């Protein structure tokens, strides 16, 4: 649809602030969430992007961002955000920008950086009380390089580096690691629960200091499902209790959406190629029961 088409039909269109035309895969759950987040955080931001799928958002000379964007190496996006914050502070103190021209540093990384390579720089930034928002799109693997396992890969998931029986580790609890630093705000979210996500973005924006939005990003390419099922799978991640929606602020953790009756975990698993080995050629009842138990155990500790 070109400008001419719009002119011909005489219709106005409401375009989303974040531009289309990105190289993200069709059906990308991370991009779907980022659109909603960007609608609220807006362009008075400097996005500091660690290496990952979303590095490809801005490939010279194209960018979907109406606001600023900076690329850093994989392990140091929060350090980049510190530099941006310091530079803005210098400009403010010298009167070269007015207070209303100030911008918010927003770190944008995948789980490889957030859970693993960049965790040290993140921890240090929280220690320093850096005033920034961290958005992690968690697709549970190194998605941009062929989906090798990361510290965010769930138990049993096949990846390029756990091809036979799936990942033998456990998904790292980044929410608790962040919360233990006592930052301003930590929340898990998902793009397929837009109301919950929007409320958390607004809450994060109302606070100052280190803030994390940890967003599960259903990944058709890495998880092995038809792109059309992205929303269905995202909703199942919540309804099975696999992805608990919760937030931390003022020293307390609250669950924001407790599934009243949890759907069986295998309803979520069997839709994804990365868990196919649990069902064919023979159903692996022991492993399926163990994965269900992981989830049941988590919720048994929640009031």
């Amino acid at each position, binding site marked *: *649809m070109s400008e001419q088409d719009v002119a011909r039909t005489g219709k106005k269109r409401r375009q989303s602030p974040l*531009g289309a*035309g*990105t190289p993200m895969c069709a*059906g990308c759950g991370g991009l*779907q969430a980022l659109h909603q987040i960007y609608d609220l955080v807006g362009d008075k931001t400097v996005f500091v992007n660690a290496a990952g799928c979303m590095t490809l958002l801005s490939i010279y000379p194209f960018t979907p961002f109406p606001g600023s964007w900076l690329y850093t190496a994989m392990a140091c996006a929060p350090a980049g955000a510190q530099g941006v914050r310091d530079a803005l502070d210098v400009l403010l103190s010298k009167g070269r920008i007015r207070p209303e021209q100030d911008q918010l540093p927003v770190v944008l990384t995948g789980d490889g950086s957030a859970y693993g390579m960049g965790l040290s720089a993140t921890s240090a930034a929280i220690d320093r009380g850096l005033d920034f928002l961290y958005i992690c799109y968690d697709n549970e693997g190194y998605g941009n390089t062929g989906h090798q396992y990361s510290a965010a890969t769930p138990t049993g998931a096949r990846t390029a580096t756990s*091809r036979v029986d799936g990942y033998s580790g456990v998904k790292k609890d980044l929410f608790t690691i962040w919360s233990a630093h006592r930052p301003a705000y930590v929340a898990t979210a998902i793009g397929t629960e837009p109301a919950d996500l929007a409320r958390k973005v607004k809450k994060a924006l109302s606070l100052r200091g280190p803030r994390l939005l940890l967003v599960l990003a259903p990944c*058709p*390419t890495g998880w092995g499902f038809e792109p059309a099922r992205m*929303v269905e799978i995202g909703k199942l991640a919540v309804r099975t209790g696999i992805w608990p929606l919760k937030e931390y602020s003022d020293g307390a953790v609250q669950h924001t959406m407790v599934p009243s009756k949890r759907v069986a975990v295998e309803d979520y698993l069997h839709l994804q190629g990365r868990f196919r080995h649990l069902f064919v050629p023979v159903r692996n009842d022991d492993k399926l029961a163990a994965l269900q138990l992981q989830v049941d155990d988590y919720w048994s500790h929640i009031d």
Partner: protein
Amino acid sequence: MYRIRFHGRGGQGIKTASRILGTALFLEGFEVQDAPRYGAERRGAPIFAYVRADDAPIHERGVIHRPDLVVVADDTLLTITPAQVLEGIASASVVLIYSVRSESWWRQQFPQIGQMVVLRPDRGTGVGLPAGIFCAGAAAALLGTVSREALVKAVEEELAAHDSALVESNRQAVLAAYEAVSVSHGMVHSGVPQPVAKTAAPAWIDVSRDAVDIAAPVIHAGTTSRLVKTGLWRTRRPVIDKEKCRRCLQCCAWCPEGGILVGEDGFPMIDYEHCKGCLVCVAQCPFKAIRAIPEAQAKEERDAQASDRQ
């Protein structure tokens, strides 16, 4: 030197096909290069992969501009200019098209193609397997220098990480395709050397060295990504039925691209220049007001409308 260029879409196994062919040639004693082109290696996006094979060490690098064999795993790419499927073909070049359409139909469409082989999808063997594996088998037969044994061994090596049932179905598929084009066995001829001295100067403009604040890749305009037409990735398009649409606009929220806009009449409008065809909107519409149609059908309907207007 054989120069083979693969064209397909992300998800069709094009990279794997090029690796299988490269490995098979290697097993036959050739010096081999094979590499996919990095870029938007995304599902549905046009994908390129290159294989070179020679008796002597290969000093050529990079993109193949003058192919001896072009393999087209998705025939819809032939009409998409940026996919550059027919770039640099000469009368000796062979174009292999994986298509349900007949060779005579394709010859009518593209009379400039000198030598053409059409591989029809096999209805018996390897149903559900991506096009790439069939293309690898047919390409091997067209070269005439790859034996069945080397081809099978290459499949087994490249798919070693997968379960035996999958390897077996791919083994059958690659052999079926190899047999299907057996009348054209050895049709592709090794191309002449292209020494660097004789290569045409590249079509770039030399830029003088600027200060780093000018020369660094800084983008000063926002949302320039809208100039990138990711609609090319689509093989099926969502179409909104305004009779059924209740204007709930859930589709706008679910669209990963932000590619569904709201018209002044309150109805959602799909931005076909950017819609990648994930079809999340079709799956999620609570009123079943969005259906998916093949792009080819959409093109036919557009053409019919255009001829009605004339």
